[in-house]
């Protein structure tokens, strides 16, 4: 039987100390990321106050800072697990930011998330973008996701940050994130820079850029 308590224990066993930076972030490719950590205090799913070390990724080449605002699994009840993922962007090089995301479930074919029909390929619609600006004035861009699924589902995400400069949208960088769930326990996958995005993701990014650059 699914138990929040058991889940929490297993989670703490697996992730204590929380988020060792060496495992959550992996430098790859041309080492464009500089890594530092920011401690924040949050309550875990049992209400206990814990300190999380949140990795802040500095994308030095473009003077953009990506800040991992939140990244942890949770038990959703009724045989469901999920995770919190939130990413902030700081940087004045681009006048606007957005994201293109694809998800692959259980190693299946990736698909745009949300579907292209929802917002023509970009993650945040205009309404959400305005809301994030009000809620997080210190960020120039922001996105969050709270995926949930039944136990046994693995979700692998490719996420491309896009920025607008000179009136044109362009791709800035691509990350991967996600989680796996086995035996009632979900665990986060390391965040990596995606130097070899899937063909589907590349197509979704290009389609979205073409649409918004018309």
């Amino acid at each position, binding site marked *: 039987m699914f138990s929040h308590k058991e889940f929490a224990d297993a989670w703490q066993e697996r992730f204590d100390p929380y988020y060792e930076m060496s495992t959550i972030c992996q430098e790859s490719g041309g080492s464009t990321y500089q890594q530092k950590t920011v401690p924040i205090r*949050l*309550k875990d799913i049992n209400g206990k106050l814990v300190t999380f070390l949140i990795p802040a990724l500095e994308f030095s080449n473009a003077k953009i800072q990506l800040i991992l605002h*939140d990244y942890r699994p*949770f038990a*959703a009840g*009724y045989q*469901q697990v999920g995770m*919190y993922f*939130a990413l902030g962007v700081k940087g004045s090089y681009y006048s606007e930011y957005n994201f293109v*995301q694809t*998800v692959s479930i259980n190693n299946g074919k990736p698909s745009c*998330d*949300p*579907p292209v029909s*929802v917002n023509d390929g970009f*993650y945040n619609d205009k*309404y*959400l973008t305005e*809301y994030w600006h009000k*809620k997080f004035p210190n960020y120039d861009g922001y*996105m*969050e*996701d*709270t*995926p*949930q*699924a*039944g136990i046994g589902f693995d979700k692998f995400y490719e996420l491309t940050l896009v920025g607008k400069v000179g009136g044109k949208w362009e791709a800035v960088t691509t990350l991967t994130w996600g989680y796996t769930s086995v035996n009632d326990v979900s665990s986060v996958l390391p965040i990596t820079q995606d130097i070899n995005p899937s063909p589907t993701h590349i197509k979704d990014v290009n389609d979205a850029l073409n649409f918004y650059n018309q």
Partner: protein
Amino acid sequence: MKNLLFFSMIFINSFSNISKCDFNKLPILSLNIVQKGSYIFPGEINCILVEAHLKNTSDSTIGFLVLSCSLYDSFVLDNDNFHILHNECSRNTSYPIKLEPHQEISIPLILQTNNSVLISSNTLKIGFIFIKDDIKINEPLLETINKCKLESDKLVWSKSFSVYHGSEPILLK
């Protein structure tokens, strides 16, 4: 000094208690449940489709937050024999919803139970967790929602209703 600390803590606690979930003082939203049908699946699993009609009963626009895909997270039931069926989610992000004066929206929910419960007839109420869209929260929305779920007197509740057995439940094979 200890007294000062004590009273400061009381003040902070009082302030935080009214910050997120306290909707009772603003009875501007009503929740009406409309049952649409019941379905029996093999294995004695019953699903009841209902529509939750949320209406802004005030003369001004109100805004609140839900999760864009798992809208069901904002609802609770007062009867443990039922639970709300979860669905697979794509983009599941905090999403502000504005309701114009007297505007109404309906949100479909699928309640799940087993046959014996349905046959023995149960009544239940459904509650909605109202999180104001301008509230400052520094945690995932789902965590705020889950905390507010524990304060049942601060939710928007529907009237109690008996589970509708339908003309004849449809057996899905």
